[in-house]
């Protein structure tokens, strides 16, 4: 049985330009146009464009918008100034992570960007938890498109489609500004470990914005394949891999996104208990010998004992080595610890290394 896949406004463009389309979280999305490594390198060295319109865009407005968001997410929404963006988690009562999200504060409303795979779940979660709040939540995923421009050349590219002074925007800031004369929301954010922007524009003008950006000589259309290798080098977690409903924020190494002093958020007590619990597993980076890739689910061993599991792995195009993220027992979480990873029945030596694997020059 084939279910009908959702399509972003860029779908026809992808199909016309050699995009290899695959099912990603119920959306038909390009995994690559040419080569994952080429597209990856374009983002590290010049600029890449990504269709990220599959991500969920939920607008919160009304007098209690901030209070509801503070109830839903682990970070301190009330502390956000207009124009600030913050990473946060949505947790269950037991502290398990429902999603990792970005919260944007604009002058009149808030935006919550959620993972495509979790959008329906989070919309329902909000419906179940908004009683008593004077707030309007609107899912704009289909009428607004979203694209990312990532890489050292992104300032110049984005400056070509907006009058807003994007060069002056600090990282994790957002603004409302026209893009090719259309109402748009611009943020200096991304999921690649590189400088860059994410643009939200009306769906009907999405392709014209994309095509204008693609006119630049060093702009390359990039698929989800390199989005994954880029975020992995930058050690950014991916929901469904590093994060799920059975993982708490502290085990995931995301304590920075939890503000205990903030308003009471759902799951606060459980998250607090997780923080103080001894012996929880740690998210670590692994550098493997050889070129074979340790993929999700591969077991990590210390001598004969299983001490953890790989959540994501790839061959790093930037570092030209096999890397992985894994959850391991605290006894083997120290940097420099030698372990082995079982790759389809063969033990491959690996070392616990510092995260992120790649950090751009400041």
């Amino acid at each position, binding site marked *: 049985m084939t279910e009908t896949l959702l399509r972003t406004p860029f779908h026809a463009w992808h199909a016309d330009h050699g995009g290899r389309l695959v099912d990603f979280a119920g959306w038909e999305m390009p*995994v*690559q146009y*040419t*080569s*994952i*490594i080429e597209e990856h390198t374009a983002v590290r060295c010049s600029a890449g464009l990504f269709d990220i319109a599959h991500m969920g865009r939920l607008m919160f407005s009304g007098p209690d918008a901030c209070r509801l968001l503070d109830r839903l997410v682990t970070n301190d929404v009330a502390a956000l100034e207009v124009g600030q963006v913050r990473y946060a988690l949505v947790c269950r009562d037991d502290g398990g992570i429902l999603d990792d999200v970005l919260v944007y504060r604009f002058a009149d409303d808030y935006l919550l960007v959620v993972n495509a795979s979790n959008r329906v779940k989070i919309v329902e979660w909000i419906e179940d938890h908004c009683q008593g709040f004077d707030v309007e939540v609107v899912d704009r995923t289909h009428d607004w498109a979203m694209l990312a421009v990532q890489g050292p050349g992104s300032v110049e590219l984005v400056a070509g489609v907006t009058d807003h002074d994007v060069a002056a925007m600090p990282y994790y800031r957002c603004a409302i500004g026209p893009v090719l004369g259309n109402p748009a929301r611009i943020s200096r954010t991304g999921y690649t470990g590189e400088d860059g922007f994410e643009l939200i524009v009306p769906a009907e003008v999405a392709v014209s914005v994309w095509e204008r950006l693609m006119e630049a000589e060093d702009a390359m259309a990039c698929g989800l*394949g390199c989005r994954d*290798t880029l975020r992995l080098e930058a050690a950014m977690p991916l929901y469904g891999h590093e994060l799920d409903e059975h993982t708490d924020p502290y085990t995931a190494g995301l304590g920075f996104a939890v503000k205990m002093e903030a308003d009471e958020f759902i799951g606060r007590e459980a998250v607090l208990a997780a923080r103080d619990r001894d012996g929880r597993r740690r998210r670590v980076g692994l550098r493997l010998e*050889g*070129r*074979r*890739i340790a*993929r999700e689910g591969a077991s990590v061993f210390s001598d004969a004992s299983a001490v953890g599991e790989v959540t994501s792995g*790839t*061959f790093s*195009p930037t570092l030209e080595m*096999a890397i992985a993220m894994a959850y391991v027992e605290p006894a083997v979480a120290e940097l420099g610890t030698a372990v082995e990873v079982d790759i*389809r029945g063969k033990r491959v030596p690996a070392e616990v290394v510092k995260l992120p694997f790649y950090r751009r020059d400041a």
Partner: protein
Amino acid sequence: MDPATLKFSKSHEWLHLDGEIATVGITDFAVEALTDLVFVDLPEVGRTLDAGEIFGEVESVKAVSDLYAPVAGEVTEVNTGLPDDLDALGEDPFGRGWMIRVAVTDASAADALLDETAYREHCQSAGH
């Protein structure tokens, strides 16, 4: 090697038969579908293979794929330079990209494989 002289499996291996010796590799279609190859694992000389048996694997950034012996036989030679020259698979899959040579048990078994025209048709239908 001219693809018109080769035999093909549906799992995208090619085979060139010279007497009792078969040279085996993977096709341009397979390499193009995989892209971004990072690793190839080939067997030892002397290993005996059944037809359809996994003789190695090729890994790309996206996924790992098994390699299947198109015919039965004993491995007599391995392209040991290939793991360090993966570009050969993209640039010359039917030549420099060869993987193993096999002393075949029954040379007539190759008759059951696809010729180039039938193989290209198979790729067309598999691609949609």
